[in-house]
């Protein structure tokens, strides 16, 4: 039995509810105990352009709060995971900044401590639960469905800090998908970028970037895709319609799932227990193949 602090970040608890719903329903069934961590707040990663120091302070605060709780952190979002690990690395090497941050945290009664383990969803599934256990729990194999894993940039990069997928390729992702009975495979730019960070600058350009990813998946015969990052989900799923309109290509349609939603489906959970009714992409295409109704 592994126990983790459930660190939601800022996008998941405010709009990407399906991720939270599926995590809360799936992980405990795999033997993972989740402890709420409401005092955390935003990791600061989206704001590092405004102030890198401010971002380091925000993540350092979360690390320190987690250290106080004495539990490892499960970061659901790629950005949060990268942010916390990167800040751990920065604090380890930059003594001056470390002292400065410690001083700021001291003012609010928090003792700086970044000696905390941070894990991402995919690591909890692959490293802690393990593919063998997942395989043993599958009651509804995703047989005959070719699913493109879409890890998202920060699952793979930057490699100067430990990444959930250390090989530069989403191997763990595909291992989990295979355990669920799905078909996996190669497509160009699997480690590419969804463009979410470009949204504030120019949605139009961001959409074109996402479109190229969907096009690659479709070209290589994938019937669905899956991610573990709320930003990627936002682009691939929530904005899919807008993307089709922007690039004027109606064929850019693909069902998109959180990896936890797929695990949940395979181990027999109902679509609503996984928040699947909130996915805006045509997930029904996959559900039909599995003989499941979205409104079960």
């Amino acid at each position, binding site marked *: 039995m592994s126990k983790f602090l459930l660190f939601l970040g800022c996008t998941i608890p405010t709009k990407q509810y399906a991720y939270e719903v599926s995590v809360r329903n799936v992980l405990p069934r795999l033997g993972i105990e989740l402890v709420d961590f409401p005092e955390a707040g935003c990791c600061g990663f989206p704001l590092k352009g405004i102030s890198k120091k401010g971002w380091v302070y925000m993540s350092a605060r979360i690390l320190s709060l987690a250290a106080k709780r004495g539990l490892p952190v499960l970061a659901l979002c790629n950005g949060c995971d990268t942010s916390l690990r990167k800040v751990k690395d920065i604090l380890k090497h930059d003594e001056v900044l470390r002292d400065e941050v410690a001083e700021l945290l001291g003012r609010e009664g928090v003792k700086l401590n970044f000696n905390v383990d941070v894990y991402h969803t995919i690591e909890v599934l692959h490293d802690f639960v393990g593919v063998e256990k997942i395989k043993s729990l599958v009651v509804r194999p995703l047989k005959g469905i070719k699913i493109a894993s879409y890890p998202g940039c920060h699952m793979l990069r930057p490699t100067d800090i430990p990444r959930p997928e250390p*090989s*530069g*390729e989403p191997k763990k992702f595909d291992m989990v998908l295979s355990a669920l009975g799905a078909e996996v495979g*190669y497509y*160009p*730019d699997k480690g590419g970028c969804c463009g979410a960070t470009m949204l504030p600058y120019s949605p139009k350009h961001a959409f074109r970037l996402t479109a190229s990813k969907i096009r690659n998946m479709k*070209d*290589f015969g994938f019937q669905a895709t899956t991610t573990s990052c709320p930003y990627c989900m936002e682009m691939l799923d929530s904005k899919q319609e807008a993307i089709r309109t922007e690039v004027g290509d109606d064929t850019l349609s693909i069902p998109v799932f959180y990896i936890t939603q797929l695990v949940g489906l395979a181990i027999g959970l109902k679509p609503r227990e996984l928040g699947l009714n909130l996915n805006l992409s045509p997930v029904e295409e996959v559900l039909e193949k599995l003989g499941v109704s979205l409104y079960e």
Partner: protein
Amino acid sequence: MSDVRIGVYICHCGKNIAGVIDPAKVAEFASKLPNVVVARDYMYMCSSPGQALIEEDIKKYNLNRVIVAACSPRMHEPTFQAVLRKAGLNPWLLQMVNIREHDTWVHEDTPDKAEEKAKELVAAAVARATHLYEITTEKAPVVKSALVVGGGIAGIRAALDLANAGIKVYLVEKRQSIGGKMAQLDKTFPTLDCSKCILTPLMVDVARHPNIEIYAYSEVVDVSGSAGDFKVKIKLKPTYVDWSKCTGCGVCVEKCPGRAPSEFNEGLGIRKAIYFEFAQAVPRRPVIDPNYCLWFTKGICRVCSKVCPVGAIDYEQKERYVELNVGAIVVAIGYEIYDMTKMVEYGYGKFKNVITGLQLERLSDADGPTKGRIVRLSDGKEPKTIAIVLCAGSRDEKHVKYCCRFGCAAALKHVYYIKHSVPDAKVLVLYTDVRAFGKGFEEFYQKVRSWDDVYFIRGRPAEIFEDKDGSLIFDVYDSNTGQLINVKADLVVLESAVVPPKDWEPLRRLLKVSCDPGGFALELHPKLRPFETTADGIFLAGTIQGPKDIPDTVAHAAAAAAAAIGFLLKGYVESVPYLATVNEDLCSGCSLCASVCPYDAITIEEKEGRRVAKVNVIKCKGCGACAATCPSGAMQQHYFTDTQILSEVSTLAGGAK
């Protein structure tokens, strides 16, 4: 020591020293130190007038100690020792002070402190010099033979030059045949002459030379002794063929049913389980690869044994060892291609149509796996669009930091191969800088630029992807046009980085040769002595010293051979001056010194009824471990006696007065 008369000379080294500190002030300071008779500063002490200055002073002031504060003693100690010798003084009455490398070059931000440091260093040298004394050296004969390790073009050239000078040469090659990387090349730049056509005659010369003995399929496993008298142990790996009986007829190879991937063809083709490395192999004696031979793997077949007309096949053969005695060793073990699978972004090893430049050489060679046809490895089709990527892994902090020094010219040559094999092919050369520095390279570059359908794109792809049809798709930003170019190529050729061979490290440790940050052998001096090492009697030929093209490799190898010939023909080695020496009156014969000597140079002998240590002056290499261990101070090291070191330490610790 009442008659110690010291001269101190402070060098300006142009601005190198004088640009940071004031040498005149240091000289002024030195002149007041005890026993100092004269102290001067001069623009370049190492120049002829500088040397003459010291020589005149020695005579004029009757000096018996000389201190030169200048560059590192590793640079000019021999220069100034020669000055002393010329003036009739023993050269070991010289004391160098390093005020350049250890002072002005690293402390230019704090010139006051640098000057203070220079003064202290000079003061310490004065203290030490007071205790210097005359040292004489002894001579030992040199064995007039040489070992050349590695049978590529560097080893071949070095072996031939040594042998032609009348020196017995043992050439050790780990593979079945000599020839090395050059034998794998189709053509050579910039002249495009056939590589084997110019190499194989030299290989034959080596085989025929009365002074050269080849040990192919062999490895150096142990080296002992010292310069002028090395004992080398060679392992002859089992070939399972009695080479003394074999005539090289090749019928065994012809009939062998066993198949293995061909190393010579960079894994692209197959060879037999009993094989010659390539058609013109030297020696023309086959070896059996037990990993693929059906007799060794399955206990069946024995065809080779049945067809051999002279009964040379010997499945029971064991490895054998040979001990050689040589005066000098030339290391010529070459280089290896960097493992391109480590550059995941280029997909080498994952995508079939991404190959290395060396693999393209094999494809282009008429004797290669495709008989000289350049094809896509995925489907054997003729490629119509080919991208050549330069600096693949080179000049890269995450892979290989240095330049491979032949990738650019090789890429130009590879354009020729492609246009020659597939005249209507479109060739993209993706470069960062085209470094066409060698003789005839720029002219060659100009010629290739003018060819039809050849495009030079200044940019480097970041990620290569595979399309469904096996072709490769990627973007490359071309800074010439300022545009991102979408490329769909049938074949991608990586001009890969180069690294020292894997078996270098164990050999390096046997030879006690240092290495540079890239792992290559460290030369004695990067400019002036690039083919010698810090280990006496060990010379470097070719790319083991650093990446080189063929012209440079050959020049380097010939220079290494010349240096080795000079060393061997001089006929003797001198004992080191820093010998261990025993004060027999103090020695108790406890033998602690003998137990720490790495060269077994110390024995304990009976003398006038008691046991005393005795030093073999030729075996002793002057490390001083015995002197550090001796409990009574009886064992000392010339030029590094306890008194000399302690006086220097004491002055440095206490600061200048």
